[in-house]
């Protein structure tokens, strides 16, 4: 009975693969339907003039490398930073959170700074604390106490702007990404840097 059930399942799988046009070859671990292929995720992308993966990667790399050289980071006490808003002042949709996420990931990986949860993650953080302390489901000894969250020393904020010009068939886009590190207690800007990118295309 069980063998019959397995046989039916295999037959169904073979039929599904046949119908979807997938191909498997004995010589490579690939199931391919034709035009799909993996590429170099770090390649220079110049398909269009719009903000792209290369711009995101270049900005994140430049900003994180610059910030770890700032005086407050070099001091070596791994300051606590929170990510504030990076305003998109361009005319196109740009996911600025994705840029700051990449910057944060690189900075954390370098070990030079620590990050406190930002505003977006605060609700999840407080919900978890409340659940552990108020639901009655957790052992007292493992509950994480309310009132121990650490306030960030610095706030990371910035903006991205663009200037777009067209002349005949030529389109020129200039992006400028600015980032600054602000001391939350006294409001002093301790570090700032910019990365600019020019992309020109013609038909």
């Amino acid at each position: 009975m069980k063998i019959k059930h397995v046989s039916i399942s295999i037959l169904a799988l073979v039929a599904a693969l046949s119908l979807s046009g997938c191909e498997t070859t004995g010589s490579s671990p690939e199931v391919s339907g034709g035009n799909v292929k993996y590429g170099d995720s770090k390649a220079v992308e110049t398909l269009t003039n719009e903000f792209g993966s290369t711009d995101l990667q270049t900005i994140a790399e430049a900003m994180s490398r610059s910030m770890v050289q700032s005086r407050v980071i070099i001091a070596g006490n791994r300051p606590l930073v929170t990510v504030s808003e990076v305003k998109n002042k361009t005319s196109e949709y740009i996911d600025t959170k994705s840029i700051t996420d990449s910057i944060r990931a690189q900075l954390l990986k370098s070990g030079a700074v620590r990050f406190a949860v930002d505003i977006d993650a605060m609700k999840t953080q407080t919900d978890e604390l409340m659940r552990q302390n108020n639901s009655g489901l957790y052992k007292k000894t493992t509950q994480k106490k309310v009132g121990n969250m650490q306030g960030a020393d610095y706030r990371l904020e910035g903006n991205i702007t663009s200037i777009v010009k067209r002349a005949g068939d030529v389109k020129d886009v200039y992006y400028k990404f600015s980032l600054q590190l602000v001391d939350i207690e006294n409001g002093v800007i301790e570090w700032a840097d910019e990365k600019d990118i020019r992309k020109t295309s013609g038909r």
Partner: protein
Amino acid sequence: MTPLFRVLAAVLLLVGIAGPAANAAGIEDKIEIMGQLKDVKVVEIQARVRNGLLFVQTEMENLSPNTQQVFYRIKWLEESGFQAWDDEAWKTLVLYGHQRQTLVSSAPTPMAKDFRVILHTKGKDQQETDRDTNTSFKY
């Protein structure tokens, strides 16, 4: 590069007082060229340790009168030769005719003690296409 010079260069690099420039043999050890690097020359590579981070300065020269585009990235290595960081994004460098351009790159982590400058140019076919269609300004 003789074994003695290699050791001396490595020691100087580690303590952050490497000489002003690698010699020709030293440059060859530090660059990896993918594809053709026609009419683009790596003139000088310098390395310094500043605040615990390795800095690399690469000077390149366009030997031709035409604008050229070079793709580059740095591979950061630990002392043991293991890669110290993920692959960097490829970056574009535009070199105008006969221009000398200096690139300064800083290591993302103090664990990086050595480096390779990886250079890549467009394939010959693509360069010819760009010239023919007069779109070499696209970058």
